[in-house]
């Protein structure tokens, strides 16, 4: 309005009007299709002949309230175990990856051992590792046997360390060999090259898949419950057995999603930032 000298042409006005109409049109279409799909889903689910029974046995608010405290106290175990195991598995994975990428014939046995480890523990089902460590190892009855939670944590670290080592190795190998050559020609030792040139780039590149594995670990830590401790899912199972109502599982499921959201958000943010940096140079 202040720019009085600017008068949009007839054609410009027509174009703006057309664009506005188009925008309104798209919004309406999107709203309509979303509403249609939503209605369809609601009708399909709530209209199903067994909906009442399903709602009673999976979505009972009273049972959800009753189960919440025990499921929450179970979840606390998951959280503690997750933090310890994530740190342990990341460290172990990094060490194994560095060992596996060592050059020179003298390191062959180290490389072979590291490769053997990743082959074994990526192939071995987690449950079997857990059984071996939590029910097998205590059978040795050695002095100073750690508690079952520590043993279960070791099983998780061993298994996830295998996956994470491969992710780290992919990152290390993605750093172009010309950079290594450049670093060495500047007089950096192998250790310095790794520390200052290779690893910073490698870790940054593989951060999204690393965090992805941590999210997966979050759901798997609960498996230590097979050795006795009560995690969130086990607490839900116990509550379910007492009431013959599956609502506690839904409670545990919702809590797990809530727990995963921050981690997934961080993963997305890191991925986005990495993509921006790489395209921005």
């Amino acid at each position, binding site marked *: 309005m202040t720019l009085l000298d600017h008068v949009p042409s007839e054609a410009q006005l027509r174009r703006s009007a057309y664009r506005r109409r188009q925008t309104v049109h798209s919004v309406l279409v999107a709203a309509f299709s979303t509403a249609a799909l939503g209605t369809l889903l609601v009708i399909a689910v709530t209209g199903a002949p067994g909906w009442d029974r399903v709602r009673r046995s999976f979505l009972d608010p009273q049972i959800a309230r009753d189960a919440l405290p025990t499921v929450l106290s179970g979840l606390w175990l998951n959280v503690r175990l997750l933090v310890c195991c994530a740190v342990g598995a990341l460290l172990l994975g990094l060490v194994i990856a560095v060992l596996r990428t060592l050059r020179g014939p003298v390191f062959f046995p180290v490389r072979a051992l590291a490769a053997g480890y990743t082959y074994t523990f990526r192939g071995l089902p987690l449950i079997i590792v857990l059984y071996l460590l939590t029910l097998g190892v205590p059978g040795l009855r050695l002095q100073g046997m750690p508690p079952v939670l520590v043993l279960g944590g070791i099983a998780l670290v061993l298994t996830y360390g295998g996956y994470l080592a491969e992710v780290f190795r992919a990152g290390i190998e993605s750093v172009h060999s010309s950079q290594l050559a450049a670093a060495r020609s500047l007089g950096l030792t192998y250790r310095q090259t790794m520390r200052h040139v290779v690893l910073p780039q490698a870790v940054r590149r593989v951060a999204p898949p690393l965090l992805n594995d941590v999210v997966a670990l979050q759901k798997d830590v609960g498996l230590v419950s097979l*050795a006795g401790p*009560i995690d969130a899912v086990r607490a839900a199972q116990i509550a379910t057995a007492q009431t013959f109502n599956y609502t506690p599982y839904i409670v545990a499921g919702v809590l797990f999603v809530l727990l995963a959201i921050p981690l997934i958000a961080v993963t997305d943010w890191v991925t986005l930032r990495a993509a921006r940096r790489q395209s921005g140079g």
Partner: protein
Amino acid sequence: MASRSRPLALTLAGAVVVATAGCAPQDEKPTPTVTAASSCAKDSLPTRTPGKLTIATDQPAYEPWFSDDKPDNGEGFESAVAYAVAEKLGYTRADVTWIRVKFDTAIAPGPKDFDFDINQFSITEERKRAVDFSAPYYLVRQTVIALKSSKIAGRTSLAELRDARLGAQVGTTSYQAITDVIKPTAKPQVYNSNDDAKKALQNGQLDGLVVDLPTAFYITGAEITDATIVGQVPQVGTPEAFGLLLDKNSPLTSCVSGAVGQLTTAGTLKELEQKWLAQVAGAAELR
């Protein structure tokens, strides 16, 4: 259920329905009247062999339910119960004949060679479609077992188990017995199966394991021989109930059930349980 036209039998059958459906000790159930007892008199009972009572069990018959695999010696809980029921029905020890029938054969539908079978049969709706059950003569109790080297071996009261690390299978009455009755200070350990729990007990990761009494006898007798029964926990939850098994729609069901009911009311079954399971088999009661 037996569907005879005689009203007294019907009344009895009704009492049986109530008793089995309730699955609880018949504390104040009306005792069968004298006339009812007379309709269940020895002479009028249509047993396999008139004047004789044919009782079946499996071979081998295990301790402590039987003794020395000899059901006719009257020793062991189930042998004693069988003779008590026979006596209530008016049969002397000499009138009782034992035969051996496999567990699975007995619960399968089809004609039976016995008047009743006593072999730790749990009463279930599913089985009731194929066979008849008497009123329960035994309600399964939860039991704490421990390694002989465990700190809780030899303890005698529930209070003494407070500081124990106890475990049970998930979703069982055994777990309920820990959380509702024993209430230990340490969190109970929960396992997917009794096999995992037994391993943990053997490893010394648990001080004690809670299982039902028949399982406790089996574990301590055959599977983990260096384990021992600490004691029985007071009844909790909806216990499994053992009943005498009869042919489907057997004319004897109501009379046998009535006899079991009378034995429960008179406290005879409680005494037998105390004698053969708690004292002889060493599963003392924890109080």
